[in-house]
């Protein structure tokens, strides 16, 4: 490790790290990039398409080349920019995108084949034969062209999300951002100051500037100390504000522990959602390069980055050899002066402008033309043409200074269109863009330190006035004003390839080809050449590409187009967007009141929407789920069983107009329901399609309790509120969802009455006193408030008993205890499903949003006497003419299995849509029938009882002969329900 004097690194501590297995040293304050350069490493990776050797280009998040895989194993993180990876002890990094060692990449053959890989080559080359694309071309291209590889292991780290609110969000902590945050902080505004770097100061850290007569870093530290002391200011270092969203909402990622070897119990990253009344964008500027022949060799860097490595990180640009600067403006000269001051030898400054003066003790080649570079794995010489003739200079690095592009990214969200500043030769934020966002400093084209400080103060004043807060009272510090005097020299013409977009390997020739092929609008240029579409979104490439295209078309740059940027500003990991909502936390999980009881009693659970429901209960000796389910079904049909049905939606409907209201919601009549009775109800959508079903129980004149299916509990409640508030607000009716308030247990089977009689308090359960479809409030178990409904899903004598949810577990235990001598059996959703198919009840598979009441055999329920949601539309011609109707299906050969999803055909008819007669919705093994059975919709089904049809399942290649039967396999007369 060789270090220059000075810099903002902590030389008292040494950190050890490896790159491609080789061990190096660095210091706290280093990035991986600065440490690699200090160790003389110039070659860090291979390019995307041509596998060209590449080195570090930039010193910040705009880096196009130095993408590495950081860490190992499950924590391996591909495509990390070495320029923003903070060095820690034990850091492990690997280069990417090469086959064989980095310095002898076998796929470098692509570079020799480059004439075939010009812009648009995918579209032209791999057209034929068509079948080859998926099997041959695409996998080969994907393997050869690419970035790093994922570990494919689960991410071991935790991520979090948080919400912050502020009067003012300041994005960027350079001179403009610090000034703005200080002014607003002193004025009492709630301020959040976010910066992507781990140290505040922005570009001031990279410069040799003075502020108020002292090194700028001292001013930064003083401001930082004051901001930290203000309770109304929150500083978020290592935080990228990646996007602006509606109404002052900003997305930001804080890299909480990316700078540590492992998070050690902390989260890795936090996703912040920041709501701010105003925001100041002080995002700085990004230097652009000037494409010339072979400008992508390791050692060719942005001049400002070279300066940053020398000033901030005390690192020479990876070489002990002299360096040269190629510039079209005064900022390049500044780099030369700073390098010399740090002891880096400067061979020459090549200024494309004629007639300029040197600004220090270095050789100036003014008006010189760049010819080319040499050095396959690292720059070793450059060739220049001056009026004196050609000359070759031996250099280890070349700094390229092409002027600075304001970082307009966030200002161009929300359809903000940057405008061209012909004087500064740069796009600056224009009108439009996010409301309440004020650009300040270098990102607004105010790039010198003095301008940035003044502009930050100006922006803070503007924001404070809009917020109604006192004007800032901060004096403006003294600093230097500079002008870059950029000349419009965008690239150096030549025969060899000159790179514009390093990350996606797009050259000036590619742009010329796009021009020739009439892909001239910037949107076409981008897609044809893939320019600007890499992970860096073309931060160092887009404006230059636009300038090259403008030159080719003979138009001005603003006439040619503009560059706007979508979120995110820099790459955001999927892990942090998930914010910890993974695995079991992916969504809330709802447990029934008897969940723990079921778990202790051998239940296997199944997800039903957000609910976990008991699917079946395994008893000792049972080795297959069918054994458990058959046993449960037979036990209910012969004795009594218990099932938790809490998950069905429950809505309490109260008010003088409750009956009228429900009459308009359900296709069938509800106002006429007698108090103490329950009625099955069918809800339609307004377009006439069946929507949901359930029961309405009338507990009092002005009090109903309605149930919905489990899946539709939320949507039906939402629709009921819509009807109440939007359609009929004049009705006296109130609603509340009570799904969670009541535990409800189905007690089903011929012995259910006997079992219930053991828990009710002095309540007459006789058929006369409490007939089928009766309901009543009552007390049980010596005073517990409960509701009893005599309804049946299984087709047996059955009840549903509801108690406050906290008693659900105890009730289940009590019923099991009370019915032990009669063999009471808990059953799960599987047995529930078998029994409802045996009984021919419709459920989710039948109410699938494509069926009508008529198809379900419930057509007569749809009242013609009243207006209810969907009733009129259910009678329109297309639906009324529908002849498919719900039927039962039973295999002709009892050994055959009915497969849901199969389609129904006449025997021997072609298996196509024209001959399709319907489909199978539900099927199960019926222990009652002794074979597989199913339900399905069949054309003219009502008239085809006894007919044999074919169920075809082309996916599985199976065909089964089925007999059409009535949908009630059990007790078709319904006697069991009523006795």
């Amino acid at each position, binding site marked *: 490790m060789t270090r220059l004097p000075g810099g903002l690194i902590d030389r008292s501590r040494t950190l050890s790290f490896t790159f491609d297995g080789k061990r190096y040293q660095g210091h706290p304050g280093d990035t991986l990039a600065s440490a690699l350069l200090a160790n003389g490493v110039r070659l860090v990776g291979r390019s995307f398409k041509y596998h060209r050797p590449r080195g570090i280009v930039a010193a910040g998040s705009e880096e196009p080349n130095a993408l590495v895989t950081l860490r190992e194993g499950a924590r391996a993180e591909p495509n990390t920019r070495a320029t923003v990876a903070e060095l820690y002890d034990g850091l492990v990094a690997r280069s990417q995108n090469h086959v064989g060692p980095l310095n002898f990449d076998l796929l470098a053959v692509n570079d020799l084949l480059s004439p075939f890989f010009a812009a648009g080559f995918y579209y032209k080359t791999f057209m034929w034969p068509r079948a080859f694309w998926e099997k041959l071309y695409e996998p080969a291209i994907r393997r050869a062209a690419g970035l790093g590889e994922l570990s494919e292991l689960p991410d071991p780290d935790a991520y979090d999300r948080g919400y912050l609110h502020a009067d003012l969000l300041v994005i960027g902590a350079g001179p403009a951002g610090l000034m703005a945050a200080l002014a607003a902080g002193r004025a009492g505004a709630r301020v959040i100051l976010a910066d992507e770097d781990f140290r505040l100061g922005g570009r001031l850290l990279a410069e040799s500037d003075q502020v108020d007569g002292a090194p700028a870093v001292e001013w930064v530290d003083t401001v930082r100390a004051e901001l930290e002391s203000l309770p109304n200011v929150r500083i978020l270092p290592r935080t990228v504000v990646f996007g602006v*969203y*509606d*109404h*002052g*909402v900003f997305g930001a990622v804080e890299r909480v522990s990316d700078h540590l070897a492992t998070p050690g119990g902390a989260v890795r990253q936090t996703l912040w959602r920041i*709501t701010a009344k105003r925001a100041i964008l002080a995002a700085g500027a990004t230097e652009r390069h000037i494409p010339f022949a072979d400008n992508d060799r390791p050692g060719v860097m942005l001049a400002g980055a070279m300066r940053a490595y020398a000033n901030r990180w005390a690192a020479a640009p990876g070489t002990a050899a002299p360096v040269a600067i190629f510039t079209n403006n005064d900022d390049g000269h500044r780099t030369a002066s700073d390098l010399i001051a740090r002891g880096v030898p400067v061979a020459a400054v090549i200024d494309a402008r004629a007639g300029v003066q040197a600004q220090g003790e270095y050789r100036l080649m003014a008006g010189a033309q760049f010819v080319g570079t040499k050095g396959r794995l690292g720059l070793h010489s450059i060739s220049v043409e001056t009026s004196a003739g050609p000359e070759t200079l031996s250099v280890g690095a070349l700094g390229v200074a092409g002027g600075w592009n304001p970082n307009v990214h966030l200002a161009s969200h*929300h359809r903000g269109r940057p405008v061209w500043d012909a004087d500064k030769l740069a796009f600056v934020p224009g009108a439009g863009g996010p*409301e309440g966002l004020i650009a300040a400093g270098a990102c607004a084209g105010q790039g010198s330190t003095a301008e940035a400080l003044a502009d930050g103060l100006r922006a803070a004043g503007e924001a404070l006035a809009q917020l109604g807060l006192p004007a800032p009272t901060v004096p403006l510090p003294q600093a230097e004003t500079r002008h870059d005097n950029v000349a419009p020299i965008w690239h150096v013409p030549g025969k060899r390839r000159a790179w514009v977009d390093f990350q996606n390997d797009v050259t000036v020739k590619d742009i010329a080809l796009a021009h020739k092929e009439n892909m001239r609008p910037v949107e076409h240029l981008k897609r044809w050449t893939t320019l600007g579409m890499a992970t860096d979104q073309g931060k160092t490439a887009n404006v230059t590409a636009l300038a090259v295209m403008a030159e080719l078309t003979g138009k001005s740059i603003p006439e040619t187009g503009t560059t706007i940027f979508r979120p995110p500003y820099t790459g955001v990991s999927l892990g942090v967007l998930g914010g910890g909502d993974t695995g079991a936390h992916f969504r809330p999980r709802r447990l029934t009141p008897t969940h723990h009881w079921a778990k202790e009693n051998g239940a296997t659970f199944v997800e039903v929407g957000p609910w976990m429901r008991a699917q079946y209960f395994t008893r000792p000796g049972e080795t297959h789920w069918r054994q458990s389910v058959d046993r449960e079904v037979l036990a209910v049909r012969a004795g009594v069983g218990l099932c938790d049905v809490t998950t069905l939606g429950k809505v309490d409907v109260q008010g003088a107009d409750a009956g009228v209201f429900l009459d308009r919601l359900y296709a069938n009549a509800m106002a006429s329901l007698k108090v103490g009775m329950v009625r099955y109800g069918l809800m339609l959508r*307004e*377009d006439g399609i069946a929507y949901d079903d359930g029961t309405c129980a009338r507990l009092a004149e002005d009090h109903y309790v309605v149930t919905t299916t489990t899946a539709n509990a*939320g949507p039906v409640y*939402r629709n009921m*509120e*819509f009807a109440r*508030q*939007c*359609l009929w*607000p*004049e009705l006296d009716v109130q609603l509340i969802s009570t799904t969670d308030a009541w535990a409800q247990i189905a007690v089903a089977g011929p012995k259910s009455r006997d079992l219930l009689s053991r828990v009710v308090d002095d309540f007459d359960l006789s058929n006369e006193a409490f007939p089928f479809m009766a309901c009543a409030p009552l007390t049980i178990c010596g005073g517990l408030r409960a509701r009893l409904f005599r309804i049946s899903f299984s087709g047996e004598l059955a009840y549903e008993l509801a108690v406050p949810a906290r008693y659900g577990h105890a009730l289940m235990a009590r019923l099991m205890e009370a019915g032990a001598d009669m063999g009471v059996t808990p059953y799960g959703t599987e047995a529930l499903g078998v029994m409802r198919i045996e009984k021919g009840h419709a459920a989710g598979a039948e109410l699938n949003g494509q069926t009508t009441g008529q198809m379900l055999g419930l057509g007569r329920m749809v009242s013609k006497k009243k*207006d209810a949601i969907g009733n*009129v*539309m259910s*009678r*329109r011609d297309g639906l009324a003419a529908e002849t498919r109707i719900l039927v039962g299906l039973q295999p002709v050969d009892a050994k055959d299995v009915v497969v849901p999803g199969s389609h129904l055909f006449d025997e021997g008819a072609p298996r196509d849509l024209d001959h399709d007669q319907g489909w199978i919705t539900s099927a199960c093994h019926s222990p009652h029938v002794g074979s597989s059975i199913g339900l399905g919709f069949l054309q003219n089904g009502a008239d085809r009882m006894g007919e044999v049809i074919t169920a075809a399942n082309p996916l599985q290649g199976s065909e089964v002969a089925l007999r059409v039967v009535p949908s009630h396999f059990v007790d078709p007369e319904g006697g069991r329900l009523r006795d």
Partner: protein
Amino acid sequence: MLIPHPLLGLRDAQEFTYLGDARLIERPTSGDEAELADYVFQRDNPAGLHRELWFHEQGDRSWLVVTRNTLTHEILGAELARDVSLARKEGTA
């Protein structure tokens, strides 16, 4: 997005469920199939100001009529749908 709830102040849009065109409030009562078909299937999709229904599902369960500019997402106001519906019914009564 933030929605200015008339009772609860600025609330995050994530608390709401979106339905669409507020003309859904104007359900025809004639029982005429053509009129209902228009109500069920026809929606305007304006580029600009749009009155639309939002349900404060993770909140107080109010249905709101929100006036939003679909081009800029600017929200110009929010009313209780119940008030909008009642005013309309009184106007036509």
